[in-house]
């Protein structure tokens, strides 16, 4: 995973296929499929679907996973395109679209712990940084960064310097517009193991589990994801470019 500085390096590109990933973060009542019904580029996209079941108490992940994407000290750009179904009911619950996550079971304080996530709440786009330690996690949210419309493709690009001291940064572009940039801060938890976080892309309807219910009536929700990229320059990650 070493990057040669001074030369743009594509570290991962997925053109909307269910192959080429390291795994899936897939719960019951959820599905991921390769779709030819809607595409951002090329001929396929990834359809991520979650179906609410009131008698189910587990989580709702429908995400593809790429392992070993960052660990503390790394810098990189991470991007994807997404399309929410046109009739998406914008409710006051969280729907994650993207997350970095690692297994901290060995610390005895957490298990799979997400760090930075990107989600919608209502129609607002949000992200966050997680810092501190696995046993004393702290979170800062960056809320209401953009208004997301359904039934049209959007692009997200994140640029981060992953540091557990106050020298990191986190930036996010939405549809080519930089909507947040934050410097001189911790962007990940300190970790004596310096373990890698993996990158998950797809829907994770975390509020359905965390709130114990679903708001609204739209129990079947889907979104398409396409052109997921990771690299050392903006263009490596922005779905508009490649």
């Amino acid at each position: 995973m070493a990057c040669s500085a001074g030369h743009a390096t594509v570290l991962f590109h997925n053109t909307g296929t269910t192959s080429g990933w390291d795994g899936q973060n897939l719960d019951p009542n959820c599905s991921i499929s390769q779709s030819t019904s809607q595409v951002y580029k090329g001929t396929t996209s990834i359809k991520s679907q979650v179906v609410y079941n009131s008698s189910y108490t587990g989580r709702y992940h429908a995400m593809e996973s790429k392992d070993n994407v960052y660990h503390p000290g790394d810098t990189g750009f991470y991007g994807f395109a997404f399309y929410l179904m046109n009739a998406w009911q914008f409710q006051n619950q969280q729907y994650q679209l993207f997350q970095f996550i690692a297994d901290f079971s060995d610390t005895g304080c957490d298990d799979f712990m997400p760090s930075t996530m990107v989600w919608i709440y209502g129609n607002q786009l949000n992200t966050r940084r997680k810092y501190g330690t696995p046993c004393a996690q702290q979170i800062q949210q960056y809320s209401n960064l953009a208004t997301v419309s359904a039934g049209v493709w959007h692009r997200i690009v994140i640029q981060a310097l992953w540091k557990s001291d106050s020298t990191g940064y986190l930036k996010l572009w939405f549809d080519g517009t930089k909507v947040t940039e934050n410097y001189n801060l911790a962007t990940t938890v300190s970790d004596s193991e310096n373990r890698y976080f993996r990158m998950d892309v797809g829907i994770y309807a975390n509020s359905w589990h965390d709130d114990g219910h679903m708001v609204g009536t739209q129990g079947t929700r889907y979104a398409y994801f396409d052109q997921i990229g990771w690299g050392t320059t903006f263009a490596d990650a922005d779905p508009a470019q490649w």
Partner: protein
Amino acid sequence: MFSKSCWLLVGWLMLGLPANSRATSFERRLFDFTPVSSTNPVVARIGNTMEIPMSEYRAYVAAEKEAIIRTNASFAEKQAVLDDLIGEYLLVDDAYKNGVDKHPEFLRKMDYTRTILLSEFLTAQEVDAKAKTADEYHRLLADLQNRVFEAAEIIVSNEAYEKLKKAAREINAADQTSIDRKASMARIRAVMESMDESVLARYDNEKVTVKEVLAIYANLHAPRPRLETKQDLIDILKPLVMPSLLAAEARKRGIENHADFKNKIEQNRNALLRIYEHGRLQQQASDGMKAPDLSERLRAWYEQNKEHYAIDGAAGSKTIPPYSEVRERVEGDYSVGLWERAEADKIRSLRKSNQVKIDDAVLGQY
């Protein structure tokens, strides 16, 4: 003579009409489709054909600038945001002028979009608008999908189905017999690549090839469903054909003629053209990252911007790390800078060749 003049006059009127109707149409809108009115005045005009009303400006702020612009923004701040929006309009306009919307690849993308939007508009009408609970939502959705599937005439080729079954068996065998994942993937890829273009199913002037089904099937995680029975086949075909079947039903109901559907198509076309233009500019930035003297350029960038990399120390002191320590960050920041400069240069050039009129009074009122 009289009749010739008459024809000329009619011809002139006909040529004039589209220009006038374009001036008040929604065809370049990116965010909002509220008609221009006394309560929604035009805040900017670009050339003779593009108008940006206040509703579009507000929607742009909400979509992309809310986190940046203050609620009580100064006039100069509002003007800067409006300039950004005008820039996006100019980029989209440039894509139209270059015929990007006529490229076969772009037209194919719009076909996908039209089909999925038709299916979603119908679902919204038949399911979202009627469901009172999540359970009812699921029931209405299943009813709608079953209804259109059962009503459809789907003709399956027995020969192609046999080819599909055989290929599916080979794919599953590759998983079971291969020692490692790479070998298994290679065998699966070989099975798919050797498949011909046989049509498995035909319906409503559409077709599904064995290859298309296999592309989905191969990407399912093992153990994959069997494809040996009619029900197995229906289960894998149904989601594949559903958007087209729903779209066909939506067309029958005239949804294509609904104003909100037409606006959604315009919005998608313009959004995709905007993405295309951003991509083109980023390509320039990417080319810049391949410059033979990139190392020197990166170092020069660092020298010009090194305060940006300063680290806060004790008692308010600042330390600037050496280039070698921040080289990766410099590379990333430099790549963003190249793109931002390419975009700014392009928009500056487009503004020179397009007359832009801003109504300061309208902008000031917001």
